[in-house]
């Protein structure tokens, strides 16, 4: 199944019944799939007039208490920034998919990871985080969709799947858990779905004019973030136990990096791979652990090195962190990465 379509089907199986989007390459197939499937199962597919509207429709659906998503690619995610900030500020859950392409500006339509900073640091204005998942295969995209929905609902924090054009367009066999039973969604006592004259009115709101009050609300949210960091960080470690050198890569790039790590091992270089699966929360502890025995690190990304600073901070700059990346939509090859690994190991074999 194609990555984009698998994301869509996985969302439906996770109980997502509302989709709001605006056309953009390379996420097109996702919306097309939703347009075909959702009306057949009593759901709603709606093509909005812009990404700005789409994210606000998502906020409306999320506030109403239903499971809903939007998908886009980089330039469209910039337009969603306002809505994401409002959702975060009003604790409205929802899933946002970014099938990244090259930037800045209109950039290109080839795969990229150049929205790492946007996703992890500044998905909108204000003091907040969103959950960011970086799958590296079609199967993992599928698995993370329902997980992302669940966490988003449980913690009332918007979630993002940070995919890229490579994963979106990739064909791979997948297993999608499907059941004929309706997904049991958690009860949302806070939702604005009509009080039915049975309770006080609910308000979904991000405005707090009293500075002390806003501070209290933000601090409360950051307490929740702490719980998320402690419990929901995900990462894959590959051959790190005896590794002198560590490659850090996420998403599609991690596949290339893993191939290069295997080749380097065949040459006798003691190298391992750490692959963050959640980009926020970032796997700081895992990196700190491998830094104990490792001599140096190499970040491999499809951008100009946006994750490097997070790796440096995670290991308290205790080891050198080198970088190799391609950008603009160019995909690094295993041979290129291997060359960097050999350089990193000082030609040791």
């Amino acid at each position, binding site marked *: 199944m194609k990555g984009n379509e698998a994301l869509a089907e996985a969302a439906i199986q996770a109980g997502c019944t*509302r989709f*709001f989007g605006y056309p953009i390459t390379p996420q097109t197939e996702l919306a097309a799939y939703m347009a075909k499937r959702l009306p057949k199962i009593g759901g*709603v597919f*709606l093509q*909005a*007039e*812009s990404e*700005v*509207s*789409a994210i*606000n*429709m*998502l*906020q*409306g*659906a*999320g*506030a*109403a*208490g*239903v499971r*809903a998503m939007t998908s886009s690619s980089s330039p469209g995610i910039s337009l969603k920034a*306002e*809505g994401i900030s*409002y959702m975060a500020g*009003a604790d409205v859950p929802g899933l946002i998919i970014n099938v990244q392409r090259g930037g800045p500006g209109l950039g290109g339509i080839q795969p990229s990871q150049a929205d790492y900073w946007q996703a992890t640091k500044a998905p909108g204005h204000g003091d907040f985080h969103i959950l960011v998942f970086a799958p590296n295969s079609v199967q993992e995209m599928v698995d993370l969709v329902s997980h992302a929905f669940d966490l988003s609902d449980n913690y009332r924090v918007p979630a993002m799947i940070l995919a890229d054009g490579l994963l979106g367009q990739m064909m791979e066999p997948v297993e999608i858990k499907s059941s004929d039973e309706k997904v049991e969604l958690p009860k949302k006592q806070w939702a*604005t*779905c*009509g*009080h*039915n*004259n*049975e309770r006080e*009115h*609910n*308000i*979904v*709101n*991000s*405005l707090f004019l009293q500075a002390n009050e806003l501070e209290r609300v933000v601090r409360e949210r950051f307490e929740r973030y702490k719980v998320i960091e402690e419990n929901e960080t995900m990462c894959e470690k590959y051959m790190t136990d005896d590794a002198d050198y560590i490659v850090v890569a996420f998403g599609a790039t991690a596949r290339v990096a893993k191939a290069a790590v295997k080749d380097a091992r065949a040459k006798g270089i003691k190298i391992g791979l750490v692959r963050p699966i959640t980009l926020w929360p970032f796997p700081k502890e895992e990196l700190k652990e491998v830094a104990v025995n490792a001599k140096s690190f190499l970040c491999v990304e499809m951008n100009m090195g946006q994750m490097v600073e997070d790796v440096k901070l995670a290991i308290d700059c205790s080891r050198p962190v080198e970088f190799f990346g391609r950008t603009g939509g160019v995909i690094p090859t295993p041979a290129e990465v291997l060359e960097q690994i050999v350089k990193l190991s000082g030609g040791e074999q």
Partner: protein
Amino acid sequence: MAVVFKKPNALTDKPTHYCPGCTHGIVHRLVAECIDELGIEGKAIGVAPVGCAVMAYDYFSCDMIQAPHGRAPAIATGVKRSLPDSFVFTYQGDGDLAAIGTAETIHAAARGENITIIFINNAIYGMTGGQMAPTTLPSQVTQTSPYGRNVNEVGYPIKMCEMLSTLDGATYLERVSVDCVKNVNATKRAIKKAFQTQIDGKGFSLVEVISTCPTNWGLSPNAALDWLRDNMIPYYPLGVYKDSTSDKEEK
């Protein structure tokens, strides 16, 4: 003792923050009376704008959402498409609806979204201190048109009802005013008709209420009402701009 006048149930006990003589309060009351009379508070979800009415979420007793500036129709769309049996209305100012949210307004109308918009046209940005709005009249002095709105430089006001009436998706559009008792009564009838349009599943309805902003117009409440009658109503004629309630099928 017989109660002859009381606060509608659809309004909370919170005192509003509106300036003395501001017509926002009148329109809030009319909206609440209509909600009461139609018995829809329990299934109503209101969407508050960014503007002076931002805190409407504290004033209406139904469930409320506070939208980003101009995005209320998109939020309302998300709610209504999720809960088709609910009753969804937005309450928006002219900057919110006719400047930053123009796209959201037009496309909600074009889609025939089964929601109701209460549009407060006071020809100015109230909350931010009286800047020029898309509905500011030619020659009208505001903070950002200190020499009067020069139409040769900044163009002409937008007449929303007229513009929206060209859209097949819009079902009910009416422009009203709250400057006198007769018009206040007419406004209530218009809001009720718009709400009924939604209840009947007939699609998009909008009521534009010509309103005052005494504070930023720099006029006393009474003088503001005179100014409204002398200047706004001639430019924004009152009336029903679209009524296809009898041709539209139930959604």
